[in-house]
């Protein structure tokens, strides 16, 4: 087959136009030519959905906050499996990155003295999340988008990358197709930044969109990069439960930050029943103290609803299992009760949580200012991903960088709310800066045409099988059920082993999915292509989850319910072995410098 593709050239190619990708592109565009490829239209990436806010220790609301406290909070939340260097850089640089957004036009909610307002969130000691009502992600992505379009960046919207292009060890571009016409394209580049987001679509109940098929993780893996911490998936405690068609859609933690409480079907506020030891000293033991905290009393401790997400999700599951759940298998989240405390409560709630108000009103017919919501855990965030150098964000593959949710390291075993949006801008900037530098130093490589032809042929396979063959949506659906039921929020060896076997069968089925009709804007075909990535990340998740025989952060094993010190000193890594099989090893966590140890000690 003659391989004629449209070819584009840039110094830096960024894959993904969420917060991380856009921030990287803006940074790189300051010094070189940049292209951005994304599967959706500009401004529609997952980042747009973020609600609660972005964490940065500006100390505008409570001046006791500092990078040190933020660092210690992040490490504690991640159960000390985080790459401490990333947590350190993140805590130090987030305030500047947030302020910079204001320079580019972002309008955050304000304090009384006119500065950026910050709100409480789970696991953060002080009010730390800069926010705009409950649509912070929209503000972030729009600000970066509207600034980015004036920086000379070239955007390739509705284009999907199917493989990375290599020259020897080094990545020198990407290969993909456009959705509109289904034609293949080659982007040559000195350096490539992956900013493709997460893997939530591997599960049935998720807050994530169709884009979250683990593309970046799979692209990197195939190119020889290491994936780390793949067992750590965040199940957000509060997804919508009812009606069925909205199950999994996120209910922001901001509801609890504003005073929302979790109650079981006996009307009991159950979060007081189990407070982990390392949070006892910082958690309220009386309802009255919890309320003082959310209304800004600096001497009060936070209510247990604002404990870390992994813990809250498990408490909800405990209530449901014990028969104390809500009618549709969740528990109740109630913000309307604050009418006992605040005058004009309905108006206050609508102002603080406008999109939650609309979401429930319009999708569930529920008025959250007068009735409780039904909520339960939903697959939300991938802590694991591509392993990167903490300072430069380069992977172990030269010329390949990663930032944002697709990268691993900052969050360890569990991410704190609000630490993702700040992650995007801190490490997006770093990735852009270092990718530009790398590209300028190394120039473009040469492209292996045969590899491109093979990638094209593999992508077009489904058309050969035709519409009568296996349906890609069916395989995707079966995969989501498999992962949901067997490698979900509570895990046991047997079920995961079962999933491992089933994944092999699904792989065989996926290799034979067929599609009718032509290549133009054909979602069935797109789904068929995405399946490979979903299967690959599912395999990695399952393999690591079996290996970690303890419970920690987002990873909970019913057969090993306790944390085990033997597992505290390493991260799990998977990569493609010599024979093409997935291989796994333990990577010791680098020793932490004494200054940082002391910071953690001081903030215990």
């Amino acid at each position, binding site marked *: 087959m003659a391989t004629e593709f449209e070819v584009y050239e840039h110094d830096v190619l960024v894959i993904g136009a969420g917060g991380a990708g856009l921030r990287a592109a803006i940074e790189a565009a300051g010094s070189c030519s940049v292209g951005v490829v994304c599967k959706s239209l500009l401004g529609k990436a997952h980042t747009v*959905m973020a609600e609660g806010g972005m964490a940065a220790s500006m100390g505008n609301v409570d001046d006791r906050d500092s990078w040190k406290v933020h660092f210690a909070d992040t490490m504690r939340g991640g159960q000390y499996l985080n790459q401490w260097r990333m947590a350190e850089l993140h805590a130090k640089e987030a305030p500047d990155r947030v302020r910079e957004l204001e320079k580019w036009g972002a*309008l955050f909610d304000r304090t009384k003295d006119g500065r950026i307002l910050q709100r409480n969130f789970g696991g953060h000691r002080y009010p730390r999340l800069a926010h705009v009502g409950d649509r912070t992600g*929209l503000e972030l992505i729009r600000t970066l988008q509207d600034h980015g379009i004036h920086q000379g960046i070239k955007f390739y919207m509705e284009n999907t990358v199917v493989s990375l292009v290599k020259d020897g060890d080094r990545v020198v571009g990407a290969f993909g197709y456009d959705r509109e016409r289904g034609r293949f394209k080659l982007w040559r580049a000195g350096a490539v930044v992956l900013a493709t987001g997460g893997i939530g679509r591997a599960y049935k109940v998720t807050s994530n969109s169709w884009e979250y098929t683990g593309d970046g993780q799979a692209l990197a893996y195939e190119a020889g990069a290491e994936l780390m911490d793949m067992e750590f998936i965040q199940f957000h405690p509060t997804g919508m439960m009812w009606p069925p068609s*909205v199950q999994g859609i996120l209910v922001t933690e901001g509801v609890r930050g504003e005073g929302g409480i979790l109650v079981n079907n006996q009307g009991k506020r159950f979060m007081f029943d189990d407070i982990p030891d390392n949070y006892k000293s910082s958690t309220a033991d009386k309802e009255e103290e919890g309320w003082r905290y959310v209304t800004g009393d600096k001497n009060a401790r936070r209510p247990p609803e604002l404990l870390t997400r992994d813990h809250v999700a498990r408490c909800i599951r405990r209530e449901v299992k014990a028969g104390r759940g809500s009618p549709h298998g969740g528990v109740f989240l109630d913000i309307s009760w604050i009418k006992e405390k605040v005058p004009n409560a309905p108006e206050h709630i609508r102002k603080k949580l406008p*999109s939650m108000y609309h979401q429930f009103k319009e999708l*569930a017919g529920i008025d959250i200012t007068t009735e409780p919501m039904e909520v339960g855990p939903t697959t939300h965030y991938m802590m694991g991903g591509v392993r990167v150098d903490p300072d430069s964000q380069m992977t172990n593959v030269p010329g390949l960088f990663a930032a944002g949710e697709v990268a691993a390291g900052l969050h360890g075993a569990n991410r704190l709310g609000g630490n993702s949006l700040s992650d995007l801008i801190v490490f997006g900037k770093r990735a852009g800066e270092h990718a530009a530098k790398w590209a300028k130093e190394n120039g473009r490589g040469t492209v292996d045409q045969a590899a491109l032809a093979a990638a094209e042929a593999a992508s077009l396979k489904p058309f050969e099988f035709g519409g009568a063959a296996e349906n890609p949506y*069916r395989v995707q659906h079966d995969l989501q059920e498999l992962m949901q039921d067997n490698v979900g929020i509570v895990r046991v060896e047997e079920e995961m082993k079962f999933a491992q076997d089933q994944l092999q069968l699904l792989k065989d089925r996926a290799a034979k999915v067929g599609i009718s009709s032509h290549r133009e*804007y054909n979602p069935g075909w797109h789904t068929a292509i995405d399946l490979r990535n979903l299967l690959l990340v599912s395999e990695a998740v399952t393999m690591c989850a079996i290996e970690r025989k303890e419970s920690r952060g987002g990873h909970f094993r019913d057969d090993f319910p306790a944390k085990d010190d033997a597992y505290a000193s390493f991260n799990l890594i998977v990569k493609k072995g010599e024979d093409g099989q997935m291989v796994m090893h333990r990577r010791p966590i680098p020793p932490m410098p004494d200054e940082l140890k002391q910071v953690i000690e001081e903030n215990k």
Partner: protein
Amino acid sequence: MPQATFRISRGDSATHSEFKDYAVEISEGMVVLDAVHLVQMVHAPDLAARWNCKAGKCGSCSAEINGMPRLMCMTRLSDLDLSVPVKIEPMKTFRRIKDLVTDVSWNFRVKEKIKKFKPRPADNADGTWNMAQRDVDRVQEFRKCIECFLCQDVCHVLRDHQKHDEFIGPRFIMWNAALEMHPLDTDDRLKELKDDNGLGYCNITKCCTKVCPEHIAITDNAIIPMKERVVDRYYDPLGWLWSKATGT
């Protein structure tokens, strides 16, 4: 389980379009986008439609449902008459790519032409500004926009008169307003609004406001104030000079 029929407009820019009926099983709480997904899964894997968030936050799933411009993910089946087929069509103001997907790239090009945000020097040594909440409130309303382009779809100047070259549409008049009313912005976009962006074409029918899924008062809060500013400056120049000189 009960069934409902969805009459979906299919076709691409080359072939002529036709309606096809698809019956799918429906359940409590479903929205139109769920039905479209079921059709893809059961009947037509190649049915083209855009979506991302399924929660009214990204503005991808715009379409015309029974003739009304709406977000598919926020239109509940229980609000529709299911005794007759539910008609789903793409937005009409933009060229169809395929089925429910249209070419909205014009909107992105329009935005690029609008002068970007230009802040005044920082108020504080650390590079920050002070702004009161009441001063950012009105701009925050405009910044709720999810760029679904339903207002652009419904505006007769674009839809019926195809003035895409002369008129930027309600979304981008509002974008100008968001910049003009931004407490920190120092640039001036009124001349372009009047001369190049076709502000005068809008005759305040308020159709845009009616379809906005974010319930933004596009006409009252953004378009009319921009028209007033243009009038004050260009048709009442003395008044404008006066206010500029006195700072009132």
